[in-house]
């Protein structure tokens, strides 16, 4: 038995002429959280859809819980839980009914389905709303119910496709806590996200994908070393070009700002000293945690936003 819950080798998938996955490789150890980080259209959802047997890959190999996704789809399905990008809950049923139905579909005996439903309602803080039709739920409650539904049969592997996109900050924090608890109990989790912060907070390992290829992989610390620590932004009142010549970095003319990707505290001191000597007046200074844009800029030379725009153009 392999100690990896998910193994993906050279996975390829095209939709008509559009090559969505151009040979993806990665693996996830049992009980770990892997985050797939990437902009819209990078191939995150396609990867999840393939691993959860919704679509077949054109070529390549993928094992989930030691079962081949193409040859043994039903064994894969029995060992996974899927939470898609949109909460796939039944609007007209109440929370409890949704959970029990899902349990019965995983072929749990009636008694166990009921018992497990009650357990999950408690765990996801949905007991008070359990008898209300889901159409009255808030966005955060729907997502929680959606996740709870995919956990009803206690699957060893769980796929979460952008689990916090569109959630307000408290709901997002709550979701993060839930995901961490789940992994602590031994569930293997693969999640996709557009947020560096989310990947950083949750994942043991992060893979960054762009245009259907893995462009970086490692722990959050390893990636950060690659991208550099914090981004330093210095806004000056004086001559912007001269300032840039003295301290280096990228110039944002509209904001009168110089952006330095690898900007730790030392870099900050150094830059300030140099500007002082060159007699350039500084208006404000800020340090930013690396965003997905920074990751992309460093790894690919273009930003994720540009990437998404290009993608949108190509789809037209």
């Amino acid at each position, binding site marked *: 038995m392999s100690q990896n819950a998910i193994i993906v080798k050279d996975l390829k998938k095209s939709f008509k002429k559009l090559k969505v996955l151009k040979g993806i490789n990665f693996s996830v150890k049992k009980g770990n959280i892997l985050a797939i980080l990437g902009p819209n259209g990078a191939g995150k959802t396609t990867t999840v*859809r393939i691993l*959860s*047997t*919704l*679509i077949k890959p054109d070529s390549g190999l993928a094992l989930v819980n030691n079962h081949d996704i193409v040859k043994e789809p*039903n064994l894969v*399905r*029995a060992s*996974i839980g*899927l939470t*898609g*990008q*949109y*909460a*796939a809950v*039944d*609007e*007209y*049923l109440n929370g409890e*009914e949704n959970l029990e*139905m899902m349990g*019965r*579909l*995983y*072929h749990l005996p009636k008694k166990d389905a009921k018992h497990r439903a009650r357990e999950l309602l408690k765990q996801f803080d949905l007991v008070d709303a359990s008898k209300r*039709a889901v159409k009255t739920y808030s966005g955060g409650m729907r997502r929680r119910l959606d996740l709870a*539904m*995919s956990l009803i049969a206690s699957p060893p592997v769980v796929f979460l496709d952008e689990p916090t996109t569109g959630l307000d900050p408290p709901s997002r924090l709550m979701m993060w806590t839930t995901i961490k608890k789940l992994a602590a109990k031994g569930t293997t989790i693969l999640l996709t996200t557009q947020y560096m912060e989310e990947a950083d907070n949750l994942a043991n390992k992060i893979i960054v994908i762009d245009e259907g290829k893995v462009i970086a992989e490692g722990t959050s610390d390893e990636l950060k070393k690659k991208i550099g620590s914090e981004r330093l932004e210095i806004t000056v009142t004086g001559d912007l070009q001269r300032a840039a010549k003295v301290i280096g970095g990228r110039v944002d003319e509209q904001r009168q700002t110089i952006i330095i990707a690898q900007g730790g505290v030392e870099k900050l001191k150094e830059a300030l000293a140099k500007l002082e000597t060159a007699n350039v007046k500084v208006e404000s200074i800020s340090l930013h945690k690396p965003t997905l844009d920074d990751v992309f800029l460093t790894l690919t030379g273009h930003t994720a936003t540009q990437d998404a725009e290009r993608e949108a153009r190509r789809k037209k």
Partner: protein
Amino acid sequence: MNITLALHDCGILTKRSLKHIIKNMDQLMGILIMPTVFLLLFRYVFGGAIDTGGTTYINFLIAGILVQTLAFGASTATFNIVLDLQRGFVDRLRSLPIWSPSLLVGHVVADLVRNTLSGIIMILVGLLIGFRPTASIHEWFLVLGLALLFTLAISWLSVILGLLVRTLEAAQWANFLIVFPLTFASSAFVPTDNMHPVIRVFAENQPFTHVITAMRAWLVGTPIGNSGWLAFVWCAGIIIVSIPVATWLFKRYTPK
């Protein structure tokens, strides 16, 4: 696929669809409103000008309205399938270790129950405004049997439509485009004798007319001709073809 498990899955998803009938009363109301308006409109506005030979117009009309109600009722399968596709429910089901076409079975069975309800309501409304059936118990059972078979046929066709159109807007006009011509170019509201010759040939040979003529004959004793067995053959034929097509379409459906 294990048959016992497949039946179990059908049972669970049928239960879900049946709960929708009760929890989504709006849909049932929506199905009943249109035929009720037609019933009143034809009974009290147009009916006086339509010659139906020896039968009173309301006795003539009720079979047509009943079939229209059933057709609208069965076409809700299209909406329900499209909703499940759009809201990701189908994706979720396909990631489960189940026989996923159970979902379609669930919707179709719910249509049968919903149509039985709405059929009974339409007949009661008819009785209130002058419908006087002459049917024997045996004939009532024939009406019920044909109504259920017809519902099954239209419901499976609607499932296919839902899998093809994929959006709610398209589902709306696609249903309209099918149910309207088939109910109007038929013997539902007027006898076919005075129709344009081309339309008349269509109207006298299409399945809706056979179903309507057969039901009318059983309900109020008008002549039945060959329509009785033709109605059953048409419905059975549609069901035999549409079930495999719907299942095949559903299995090869890939989300966009």
